[in-house]
């Protein structure tokens, strides 16, 4: 008799469908003699509980990715813009959850809503807000987990797209414009393309495959990042004359923390995308995911070491992310050997891509476009090459990549374009030189530290 019982008293009268689980508790208390009773939990109930625990754990890990992005992005940019980046990342997760609850979820999964609309496979919406009352907390809603878990896991994914963009437009975008963009992106763009595949829309019918979102999450974020970086133009002093002057990140321990947290978070991102705790499935996905990440590190390390003659930490870190983005589309349909190959290629690709985007003067402070767009596309196509499922084809994959790319890039260009034409997209030259922490927030990130803010 302790906390449990005390709390139950309070809980008992709550008018919700906690039936099964409460009964389980009661039965447990009553002891084994009660097992013959009508209300005993079935094996399916227990399995449902296990699946739900797993999915909640996965949700936690995906949440942690937002801290990963916040630390990675601030670590790879300058000290004078740190408060700004941290602010954006804190705002994104908050806005993301609320927006997704209000609009996004019912736009992405039209058939999951309370009232099922006509779902034509292109655009559907089942009303504002979330409501998981009733049977939706039991396995009759879903054998894997409850409506609430379903929503929360998806909500954590949703904000990721905007976070990816945040890195590419860092150090020069106006805070207000970025936040407006974020709301629209999370509320509209991400859910619509998401519905095409995961919402059982037309791409799903076509046979396009994207396990956990190389395209649906990462390249979507990547396209938005590309649009933003192009419309904003490069940071002052990045491209002078014909030459590239890299602007170094101010805190590599912070960036490393970010990458390790993202790697960890991916265990939930991919492991949770199995959508049940199925032992073989989940653990195999974890193995392919890890092998790809490790291979990405090794490839990026070697390629950058041989190009630059010195081993580059920022590239090794990007290599891990490249491998992870690369395996995301196919983690459940490839062998560990294929996973290694996918990761190696992604790790090499990210180095080449970073150099390429600098060549064409698209300034991406943290390499978000290379990691999420380039490797996201690669990972999606890799399904067509390496999948053990003969129905997957590189052609179908290409259709998905292009369709989602065109829609998202156009959406982002238009929204960013309108913002640019109206309230403006970029801070003034003076504000950029002083740093966004002072110009946008009046708040330094490292008060007291002596920092050269002249670059």
């Amino acid at each position, binding site marked *: 008799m302790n906390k449990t019982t005390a709390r139950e008293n309070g809980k008992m009268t709550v008018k919700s469908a906690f039936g099964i689980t409460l009964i389980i508790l009661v039965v447990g208390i009553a002891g084994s003699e009660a097992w013959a009773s009508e209300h005993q939990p079935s094996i399916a109930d227990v399995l449902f509980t296990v699946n739900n625990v797993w999915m909640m754990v996965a949700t936690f890990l995906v949440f942690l990715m937002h801290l990963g992005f916040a630390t990675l992005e601030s670590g790879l940019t300058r000290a004078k813009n740190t408060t700004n980046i941290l602010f954006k990342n804190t705002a994104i997760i908050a806005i993301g959850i609320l927006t997704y609850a209000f609009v996004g979820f019912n736009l992405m999964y039209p058939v999951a809503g309370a009232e099922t609309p006509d779902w034509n496979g292109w655009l559907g919406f089942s009303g504002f807000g979330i409501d998981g009352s009733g049977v939706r907390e039991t396995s009759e809603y879903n054998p894997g987990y409850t409506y609430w878990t379903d929503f929360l896991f998806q909500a954590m994914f949703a904000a990721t797209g905007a976070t990816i963009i945040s890195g590419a437009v860092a150090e020069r975008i106006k805070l207000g414009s970025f936040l407006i963009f974020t709301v629209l992106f999370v509320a509209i763009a991400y859910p619509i393309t998401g519905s095409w595949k995961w919402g059982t829309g037309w791409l799903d019918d076509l046979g396009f495959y994207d396990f956990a979102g190389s395209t649906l999450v990462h390249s979507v974020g990547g396209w938005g990042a590309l649009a933003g970086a192009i419309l904003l133009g490069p940071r002052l*002093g990045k491209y002078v004359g014909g030459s590239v002057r890299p602007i170094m990140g101010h805190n590599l321990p912070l960036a490393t923390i970010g990458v390790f947290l993202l790697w960890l978070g991916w265990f939930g991102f991919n492991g949770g995308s199995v959508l049940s705790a199925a032992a073989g499935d989940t653990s195999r996905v974890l193995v392919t995911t890890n092998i790809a990440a490790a291979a990405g590190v090794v490839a990026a390390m070697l390629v950058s070491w041989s190009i630059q003659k010195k081993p580059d930490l920022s590239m090794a870190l990007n290599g891990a992310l490249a491998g992870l983005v690369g395996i995301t589309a196919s983690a459940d349909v490839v062998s560990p050997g294929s996973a290694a190959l996918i990761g190696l290629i992604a790790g090499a690709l990210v180095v080449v891509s970073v150099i390429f985007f600098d060549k064409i003067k698209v300034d991406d402070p943290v390499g978000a476009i290379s990691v999420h767009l380039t490797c996201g596309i690669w990972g999606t196509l890799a399904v067509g090459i390496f999948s053990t499922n003969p129905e997957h084809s590189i052609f179908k994959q290409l259709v998905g990549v292009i369709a989602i790319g065109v829609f998202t890039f156009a959406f982002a260009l238009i929204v960013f374009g309108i913002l640019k034409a109206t309230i403006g997209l970029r801070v003034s030259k*003076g504000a950029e*030189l*002083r740093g966004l922490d*002072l110009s946008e*927030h*009046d*708040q*330094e990130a490292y008060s007291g530290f*002596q*920092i*050269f*803010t*002249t*670059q």
Partner: protein
Amino acid sequence: MKLIIAYIQPEKLNDVKQMLFEKKISKLSVTNALGCGQQQGYQEHYRGTVVEINLLKKVRLEIAVNDEFVEPTIDAITTAARSGEIGDGKIFILPLENCVRIRTGETGIAAIG
């Protein structure tokens, strides 16, 4: 020989360096400094109240030059660092008695450049 000390706004450093190079002054030393002057200090916001920052970030240049370079140096700095707003900074000119290049042991005028 003179030792020229200049306090400028941090964001002007690159422009000043550029201008000095154009005038063939390529040797200088830079430190961070905090400055108090006519500029009233800006405000930072933190947890609901306003912070008066009256020690503002400045960059301090130290440039040892031969006498004929004093004018060009001052010109270069004033041109590149001037925005016309309070806080642009100051230049101080001090007499410099001697100068030694550690690497070679050269002294005086030969050692400056």
